[in-house]
């Protein structure tokens, strides 16, 4: 995974609440057995004129300049709620998004972000709205900065807004770590736990049951 340290970029405000992963990428756009080529389906229901078409809806923010170059998305509470589809994060990432700033996130979505190099930044609703106002005033000039090392968002007006991210998540993003490799360093402990647990709860383990 690529490392994330600091990003200064155009931010696109999409201030709706409860944007679900079906809206981020509709099921009909997840045709491949692959992580690639999904960005075309990003927000397909809103971005195109009609389902299935590729004719752009000019009213949708990501179809407008300069937001086509946005790397940061501003949104409302509970962003990424609903289906666990990681395609939502893959589509956002392939489209170019690297950080999402919202008051709260769907919990599976949040985990998926961290594992794919997108920073989920939780800021209070008033702050998100204030950032959106500042950005909208002059989107190409009023850039936002997400500084992951310092865990702050720097607004166009120069104000710094701290946010929190669990240490493990922050480290994974900063270092671009592969979580499987990190865990497997503790394989001996995992196996020892399983041995103990197998003695205590043998019915959990299929081998002990001889079920085929």
């Amino acid at each position, binding site marked *: 995974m690529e490392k994330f340290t600091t990003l200064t970029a155009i931010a696109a405000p999409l201030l709706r609440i409860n944007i679900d992963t079906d809206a981020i990428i509709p099921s009909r756009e997840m045709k491949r057995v692959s992580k690639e080529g999904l960005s075309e389906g990003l927000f397909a229901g809103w971005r195109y004129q009609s389902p299935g078409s590729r004719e752009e809806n000019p009213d949708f923010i990501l179809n407008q300049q300069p937001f086509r170059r946005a790397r940061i998305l501003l949104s409302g509470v509970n962003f990424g709620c609903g289906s666990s589809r990681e395609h939502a994060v893959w589509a956002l990432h392939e489209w170019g998004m690297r950080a999402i700033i919202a008051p709260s996130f769907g919990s*599976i979505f949040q985990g998926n972000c961290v594992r794919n190099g997108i920073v989920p930044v939780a800021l209070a609703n008033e702050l998100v709205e204030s950032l959106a106002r500042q950005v909208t005033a002059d989107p190409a000039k009023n850039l936002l900065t997400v500084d992951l090392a310092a865990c702050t968002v720097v607004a166009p007006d120069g104000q710094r807004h701290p946010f929190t991210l669990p240490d493990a998540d922050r480290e994974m993003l900063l270092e671009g770590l592969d*979580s499987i490799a990190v865990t497997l360093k503790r394989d001996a402990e995992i196996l020892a736990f399983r041995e103990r647990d197998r003695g205590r709860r043998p019915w959990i383990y299929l081998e002990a049951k001889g079920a085929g």
Partner: protein
Amino acid sequence: FCTMDHIVDTTPGRTDDTRMPGGREFITSTRASALAAGIHLFDLGDDRQGIVHVVSPEQGIALPGVTLVCPDSHTCTLGGLGALAWGIGSTEGEHALATKTLAVRKPRSMRILFEGQLAPRIYAKDLILHLISRFGASGGAGHAIEFAGSAIRALPVEGRLTLCNMAVEFGAWTGIIAPDESTFEYVRGRPFAPTPEQWDRAVAYWRTLPSDPDVRFDAELEVDCSQVAPQVTWGTSPQHGGGIDGRVPDPATETDPNRRQSAERALQYMGLEPGVRLEGLPIGAAFIGSCTNSRLSDLREAAGVLRGRHVASGVKAICVPGSSQVKKAAEAEGLDKVFRDAGFEWRESGCSMCFYAGGESFGLEERVVTSTNRNFENRQGPRTRSHLASPATVAASAIAGSLSDVRKLPST
């Protein structure tokens, strides 16, 4: 374990060719990968096949005290048995398979007490829809929620699965219910459940699982169940709902600007005006199925309403049993005949029209009353308008051709 559910067709005589774009490739590569990795596969044609969250309790894979993950957000369903189960993304799935573990942060805890007795024809589905409409779709955000109280103790296991199924629609990390005697009875004898030799030890362990009596939760809510009416949603979030005897609310009365805007958008999408009565709203289709409400008890309740009646003309009505086992058991009771006689299609099991992936769907702007869990925009088809409700309410509405109060139908 692996089962074929989302992508398969549910029409009789189905094969690997599905109506979903890319379906065949998905099915064949899933099959090949499962076999190569030594994963138990409930394939097409296997009589254990079905929707994953219906199959895993049925097969005794989900058990009290088991930690279980699946790359599907409704994995929280299994909390109904006292399993700690939650949905994950694909990368986390890979991690779980490769390392047998997942690192999770301890979530905040919440307890929701459902107290009082349910009125007749009020179900777990009504309770959870009521909860979400009252406290919002992010009311449980990030929490592990224990559902407790007298109404939960009285709820049969299948109802508990329905309730926990929609914990994710409340924003929860997962939902869970303390296992008790009904849980043990439900689990006993299932294929992957503890063997008779292991049984007593397993039950002794399960009895240690309930929360301590003096435990403190980060948040507590209480719901009086005796007043809950049959619920139906009117918008595009599960929080947009209320009693069947209510009206579509006026977004203008909403003080929070975000919620107002979301309600306005929802009404526009749903083609509804503020103040319209929910009861009597004409529908074009009725769907009974999904991991929320497609178990045997759900089909029995719906069949109880349908018996001796027929769906209104022009209503497309479909029933999709949640698993091949449910289908078989329902047919053994003659429920398939009740559904068919009433004008319902009777399908093979799978996710079916709970979601739209380019395959089968309801029509443009079709109004559907559905026993599923998500009324999101385009969830069941392009511009399809979904109204979530219990299977009994779906059945009653199918008969009337409009959203209906199932309490008003005399039993047959």
